[in-house]
């Protein structure tokens, strides 16, 4: 579904794909017709908050500090083995950590809306009945 641009800096996808996209693109968006429609939802607003609070934490700041510190080490060229360390611990690790942070949020979401740990495709026919949300709440009947 995805393709890269010639420069490699643009990832292109024609449609949303996967839960991460869908949560971000569609979750709190779309036509809301209060007067006519009952919205039957489970704590959706909480979910989007969960995804975003992950960012500014002490943990993040310490990782930033470490990353900037690594740049110092690289520039001064002290300590043997640093280049290798940097290669391994640098971009790759940062990428992993970034993903880790976001996925941490995603895990929280999965847990909250009861999507379970199975990372399978859409052919799970047990459907929603087997996956109750813990924070489930009734819609407000009109």
């Amino acid at each position: 579904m995805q393709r890269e641009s010639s420069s490699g800096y643009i990832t292109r996808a024609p449609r949303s794909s996967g839960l991460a996209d869908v949560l971000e693109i569609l979750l709190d968006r779309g036509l809301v017709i209060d007067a006519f429609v009952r919205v039957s939802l489970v704590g959706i607003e909480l979910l989007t908050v969960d995804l975003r609070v992950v960012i500014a934490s002490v943990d993040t700041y310490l990782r930033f500090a470490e990353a900037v510190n690594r740049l110092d080490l690289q520039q001064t060229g002290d300590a043997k083995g640093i280049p290798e360390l940097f290669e391994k611990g640098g971009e790759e690790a940062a990428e992993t950590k970034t993903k880790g942070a976001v996925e941490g949020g995603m895990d929280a979401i999965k847990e909250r809306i009861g999507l379970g740990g199975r990372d399978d495709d859409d052919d799970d026919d047990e459907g929603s009945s087997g996956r109750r949300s813990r924070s489930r709440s009734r819609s407000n009947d009109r």
Partner: protein
Amino acid sequence: MSRLYLYGITRPRDVPARLAADGISLLTEDGRAAIISELDDEAGDVEATRRNLLAHADVVEQMHEDAVVLPARFGHVLDGPDEGLELLALPEIEQLLERHERTCELTLKGTYEETVLAEIGAELQPLRRAYRSAPSVDAGIALGEAVGEQLAARRARDEAQVLDALRPLIMDFASSQPAGEFAAFNLALLVERDRVAGVEEQLEKLSESLSPPLHFKLIGPLPPYSFVRLALPAAA
């Protein structure tokens, strides 16, 4: 009377066979149509499961490929066909359909490479020295916070720059808070369908000039999820 799940609103036409086989149909009234499926009365509320969310996205995005779709927010349930027909009769719905007849939404996410920290770090020498000479948690947090602030300033600057470059091509935009440490921005762009290629070209140019490189992720053409606000009087 059976309840109906509402995916969105469109113009009357055939439902693609793949969706029809899944029970998706149109409730049509005078040039407007609600995209619906019947809900099992026993089923209770529609839950925000992965499966349900993906199904909602699939239906509105598939239907949007051929013609305008006003996507409903996930979770809308109509009490029955009458409620759907009443909804379709609203003048605001016709206005929105006309506004979005040829539009689509593109979502654009910008993400930095970790090398952004090298540029930022260059401006934070005193804090870095303090941290290196005495790497305490406090010194680390002070340095990290300063990095975070610089990153936030850079996000704002780069978002503005991207929007400036795209402004001639877009009808509207919505900005939301990006998720992720190296995320730069998260934009929803409303564009005419025939301008999508133009936006891609413009982004190619931008990505060459922005340093350190910003990675863009562009998704679409999508239905105008972020541009279908409707102001209706409260229920009687």
